[in-house]
């Protein structure tokens, strides 16, 4: 008599079934435009994981998605829907750039530490205003964070075209290149024998992302703060009863969330572009939402989901290249289908699977305790009396 579902079903089987469904529908779409879906799937897979170098791209994208996914997941635990990962990561990029452009760091390790602090602090600061408005004024966090994405985007354009622009950069709004001393070692530098190319974007930020996964796991499931965040997320009245301040938890959870989203810039700005460009995030903030949903807000789930989306990004690019009929928009459709099935339509698969597992289990000894009779029946069917 344990809870509804075994953990592996919850975080592995159901997402996998969702994914298969999404791929089947995508296959139908591909077939509908007259292309061979199996050929496309082949390119997708080899494109994502076929060569060591392709792995490099896949893991590079995955790193972005781990950070934003973790950020969204932490907010989810406090039942806050942070749609603002996009803006927070962009402003995090600003933090990285300011940190690296104006201070002569002697070595990339110290620079990484400082830039991480900068990225997290800027990302957190960008989420602080929506968090405050939610906590104190009740302005809905979904609305404010999405608005802040636009503000961030406008701010970046202004700063890059007017303030931080390098003279003579040929009109492209970007900062100067960071100095060589702060360049993060990439996979080629660290493990050339694996066969990465010199230009591979995969860099040490990936390890930082893994560390962030562990950190978030500890925070959510082992610390008192995590206990309070989850309690608040499950039931605000209960949290108040226990003396947990909703204002404090809303602020802290959103600051951590924004900080994690900001950290994503370490990978894309410091690790790859080595300068701040106009849109360093490229949708990773939004993908983070899908990643957190698919990963059930658990760091392991987030890691796996980020990996999957990394494959879709990298593999999708290959498909686009190999099969001209499948355009960039088509790839977006496929990615959207995956998001749709794993995020929005999760219950479609979950409910039948739950029923299947409940039936397989031995019959309970007693009937369910109930609440008053309601039109439409009882809400909670999971209660089991000893």
């Amino acid at each position, binding site marked *: *008599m*344990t*809870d509804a579902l075994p953990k592996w079903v919850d975080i592995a089987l159901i997402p996998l079934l969702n994914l298969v469904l999404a791929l089947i529908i995508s296959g139908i779409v591909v077939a509908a435009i007259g292309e061979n879906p199996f050929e496309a799937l082949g390119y997708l897979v080899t494109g994502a994981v076929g060569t060591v170098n392709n792995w490099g791209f896949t893991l590079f994208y995955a790193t972005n998605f781990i950070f934003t996914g973790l950020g969204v997941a932490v907010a989810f635990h406090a039942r806050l829907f942070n749609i603002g990962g996009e803006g927070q990561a962009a402003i995090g990029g600003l933090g990285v750039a300011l940190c690296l452009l104006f201070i002569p760091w002697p070595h990339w390790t110290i620079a990484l530490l400082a830039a991480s602090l900068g990225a997290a602090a800027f990302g957190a600061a960008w989420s602080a205003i929506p968090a405050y408005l939610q906590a104190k004024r009740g302005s809905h966090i979904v609305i404010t964070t999405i608005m802040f994405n636009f503000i961030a985007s406008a701010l970046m354009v202004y700063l890059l075209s007017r303030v931080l622009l390098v003279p003579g950069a040929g009109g492209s709004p970007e900062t100067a290149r960071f100095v060589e001393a702060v360049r993060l070692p990439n996979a080629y530098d660290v493990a050339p024998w694996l066969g990465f190319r010199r230009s591979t974007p995969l860099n040490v930020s990936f390890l930082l992302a893994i560390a962030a996964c562990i950190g978030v796991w*500890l925070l959510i499931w*082992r*610390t*008192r*703060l995590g*206990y*309070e965040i*989850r*309690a608040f997320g*499950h*039931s605000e*009245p*209960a949290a*108040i*009863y*226990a*003396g947990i*301040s909703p204002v404090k938890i809303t602020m802290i959870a959103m600051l951590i969330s924004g900080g994690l989203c900001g950290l994503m810039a370490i990978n894309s700005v410091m690790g790859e572009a080595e300068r701040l460009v106009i849109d360093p995030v490229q949708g990773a903030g939004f993908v983070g939402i899908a990643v957190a949903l698919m990963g059930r807000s658990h760091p392991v789930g987030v890691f796996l989901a980020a990996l999957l989306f990394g494959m879709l990004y990298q593999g999708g690019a290959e498909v686009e290249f190999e099969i001209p009929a499948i355009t960039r928009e088509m790839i977006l459709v496929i990615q959207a289908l995956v998001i749709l099935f794993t995020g929005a339509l999760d219950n479609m698969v979950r409910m039948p699977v739950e*029923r299947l597992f*409940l*039936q397989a*289990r*031995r*019959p*309970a*000894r*007693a*009937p*369910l*305790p*109930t*609440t*008053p*009779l*309601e*039109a*439409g*029946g*009882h809400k*909670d*069917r*999971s*209660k*089991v*009396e*000893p």
Partner: protein
Amino acid sequence: MTDSSLAIELRGISKAFGPVQANKDISIQVRRGTIHGIIGENGAGKSTLMSILYGFYKADAGEIFIGGRKTEIPDSQAAIDAGIGMVFQHFKLVENFTVLENVVLGAEEGAMLRPSLRKARTLLKQLAKDYEMDVDPDAIIEELGVGQQQRVEILKALYREADILILDEPTGVLTPAEADHLFRILRGLRDEGKTIILITHKLREIMEITDTVSVMRRGEMTATVKTADTSPEQLAELMVGRKVLLRVDKKAAQPGKTVLEVENLRVTDAQGVERLKGISLAIHAGEILGIAGVAGNGQSELLEVLGGYASGTGTIRMNGQEIDLTGTASDAQTRRARGIAHVPEDRQREGLIMDYRAWENVGFGYHHDEKYNSGAFMNLSALREDCEGKMQRFDVRPPNPALTAKSFSGGNQQKIVLAREIERNPDLLLIGQPTRGVDIGAIEFIHQQIVALRDQGKAILLVSVELDEIMALSDRIAVMFDGQIMGERLPAETDQGELGLLMAGMSGAAA
């Protein structure tokens, strides 16, 4: 082989939710023109059975006969067509419609509203005369009292020509006087030939009003007996499956020093409505002060402000020291530090995190305690260990700390909360609706724990809408109505009638 003297006959009804068998092969015969009680603990399957009868659920097996004819009831419209009317515990009325509009809603005839309304008005007048169900047809629902709203629900069913009326825990929200009135109405309806099914967990009501009573336990119908041939003790035993002590054994209280003093306490809610209008009371060590009253008369606000999560004005002294009421320098945490423990009225909404495991819940509210922490981290093994001990001492079943709170029955959930709050050894225990949704077997245990805590010299503030519970446990009783205390009585020197008048706001009852 059917019998047309039966209003309803169910044969072999079974219904399972996943592995949970909510109804097991239930057969029941309800005779026309009788009041038939269905009694059972929470989770015995009463509501599921009625949901099947009203078309919310489809039975896995079994047949339904209405008036001797086999009837399929796929949805509630079919139930209404078959002459079944249902009065829910939570009313299904449109708050800003008039009584008349609510009665007609869903049963309009034709495209124009006026003829239906005219017809309803005539009928309402007739019913008011026949059954003393006088309700102003033009009154807006939200301006009516709960008892009157319930009458509108009954009128709705009658307007739809219901022959069979099902009432789910109808007295839960009523004062004793209102309940009496309801019973008069029900008797009148029965005498007119209507059939009434009354679902309740209150033995007293069963004995008072029903002709026949069926007892359910764990999804099965354990007995159907004539009410006149049974006794509350026998029914309780049938419900629980063992002998139950219906009284609380307790010695006379030995009140000591004053623990809690409340003076002129006022609370205004977010809508600007004054919920507490100058409450003053005192509780001594070794004493249970019971707060009686119909739900919604300020009891919840009293608990909230004492528990530290509503602000108010006035004075509260705990062990002689004043407590901050403004909410700026205090919250539920600081109240706990002052020796106030709180078993909230709604354990599923406030007292427990339903998705937390039992061991996570035993530290809830006390999660800053040193023993549950090591640095910033929670000491999980300490929590688990503590939970095991508490489950054993408070007889929580099943004694498995890894189960989430929602997988326990109401009674066992309450035991977890009680264990957490009582074992903190507070000076004052606030306890709201200690046995709401709790099975009879567990009620006995919970009452014993409360009395035991009193006997240890603790002060207890008991809020309950169950007058029987207040009478049985309290050493003093204060009655609340409309945010005020109407009067204080000693249980030995009062009765349900007098308390009932106070609960209805009539302070004229001899002071």
